[in-house]
């Protein structure tokens, strides 16, 4: 294992410490070492936005803490849900008196810890509502949406929910907007190599050289098809062919497109893939309102890529457009 680490058991602690030092323009530490907050959180009179999840997906989840996005984040071990205590402390850090929206991904551990956290903060009189992201198309059939995992589409959910809260939406409005964002989003990943949790020391799944796995999950969960390695254009075709019919997206729809690397993919290759995705969507008559390409949601050092597409409407467009100042999502109006 060729990695830049000290004691693997201290990896997350050291990551968070370093992160807080670098990104002090947007985040602050809290009494809980596994919770980071927006530097100005809680924002009085604003619905608080909380997320959380396992580490190893950087810049998710902590990178989305910042102005107009997420107010506080609960940080777990590598690929493992944060504790109930961390979610509870993040909720408290984000609570500006108008309730807190916890926007997270559909994983068993996260579901349980958020449930316990909501119970814990109820004693403090904090009103909490949740949206559980389930944008990963290959993780379950269309008739079992509640079984699907949350993947990179979560970013668009945080962007929309955070913007709605920043614009003064109440808790129900923020929850409704975030729910709409994820309901309108479909994602898929392709993995080319496995990844290794340092404390484990070896990969716990394998992808043979010369092969790739379509539909792979963010922790190496099996996909829907293992095939010979394809060209970037062929990958784009397979991804688009899976994602578009699922919502479905129709000609004339305006969409946000998010292409994320999984950690080891050279950034330029993400643009090669995007180039073809853009053509394919245009052929289908989709109008690309905003494209995002980069390492938005990774899986340690996995070689691979995810594609997320979100269908917009008149409510979602201004929420996507609103300024955002988080390390993982920084966007300002251009005059």
């Amino acid at each position, binding site marked *: 294992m060729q990695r830049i680490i000290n004691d693997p058991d201290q990896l997350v602690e050291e990551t968070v410490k370093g992160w807080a030092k670098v990104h002090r323009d947007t985040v602050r530490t809290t009494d809980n070492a596994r919770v980071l907050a927006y530097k100005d959180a809680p924002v009085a009179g604003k619905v608080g936005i909380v997320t959380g999840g396992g580490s190893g997906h950087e810049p998710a989840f902590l990178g989305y803490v910042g102005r107009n996005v997420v107010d506080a984040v609960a940080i777990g071990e590598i690929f493992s*849900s944060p504790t109930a*205590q961390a979610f509870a402390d993040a909720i408290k850090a984000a609570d500006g008196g108008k309730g807190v929206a916890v926007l997270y991904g559909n994983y068993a551990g996260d579901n349980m810890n958020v449930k316990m956290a909501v119970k814990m903060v109820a004693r403090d009189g904090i009103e909490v509502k949740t949206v559980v992201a389930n944008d990963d198309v290959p*993780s379950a059939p269309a008739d079992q949406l509640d079984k699907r995992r949350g993947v990179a589409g979560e970013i668009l959910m945080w962007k929309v929910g955070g913007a709605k809260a920043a614009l003064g939406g109440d808790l129900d409005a923020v929850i409704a907007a975030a729910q709409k964002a994820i309901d309108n989003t479909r994602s898929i990943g392709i993995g080319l190599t496995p990844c290794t949790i340092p404390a484990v020391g070896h990969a716990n799944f394998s992808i043979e050289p010369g092969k790739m796995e379509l539909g792979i999950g963010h922790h190496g969960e099996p996909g829907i098809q293992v095939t010979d390695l394809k060209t970037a254009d062929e990958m784009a075709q397979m991804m688009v062919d899976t994602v578009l019919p699922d919502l479905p997206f129709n000609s004339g729809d305006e969409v946000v497109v998010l292409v994320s690397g999984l950690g080891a993919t050279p950034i330029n290759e993400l643009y090669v893939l995007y180039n073809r995705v853009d053509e394919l969507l245009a052929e289908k008559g989709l109008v690309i309102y905003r494209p995002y390409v980069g390492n938005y949601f990774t899986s340690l050092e996995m070689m691979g890529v995810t594609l997320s597409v979100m269908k917009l409407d008149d409510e979602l467009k201004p929420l996507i457009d609103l300024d955002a100042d988080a390390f993982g999502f920084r966007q300002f109006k251009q005059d």
Partner: protein
Amino acid sequence: MRAITNADGQPVVQALIDVIKANRDHLSDIDGLIGDGDHGVNMAKGFAMAEARLAGGTVSMAEAMDTLGFILMSEIGGSMGPLYGNLFIDMAATVKNVERIDAAAFGAMLKAAIGAIQELGEAKVGDKTLMDTLVPAEAAFAAAVAEGKSFDDAIDAMSEAAEKGKDSTRDLVAKIGRSSRLGERSRGVLDAGAVSCYLLLSTMGAAVKERLTDA
């Protein structure tokens, strides 16, 4: 009445800590086959933290168990932190004010353990989870007591059922949690949670049995 004195029961919790620490790598290896390979590591971390918290003092079995549960809940994330955390907190709560824990009180603890898991998830027997160990173990204990068997014999029945339940997960397809994504590929391997649950129940049973008195 055959029972264990609550105030003398801290060593029972220490036995749970010891068995999890001793099986750290074993549990992680099982988990690595169909999960992410961190079950033993995370469990051992939490149980060791509880050991440190309990070190030097003497508390009752209920208090020690509550401390263990609280630490698992607050320090260990993933699925196992809340599941085992809630389980031990609720088990402890049922005997908090009980001086002598008899078969009826122990049976109530086992029922509370099942309730604690059900509060958090939908897992049922057959889903390849720790419930495949816990549910038959509780049922066997209750049945033995109902048949008029001794507390000692009921504990043996519980441990035997826990072991069978744990072994039953080998032929099951995971329906819940991360390994459920594997579908048929999860068959043929034990569930790590079912194994840790078996280790905890059988160790608890043996440690309680050693301390039963007729006083």
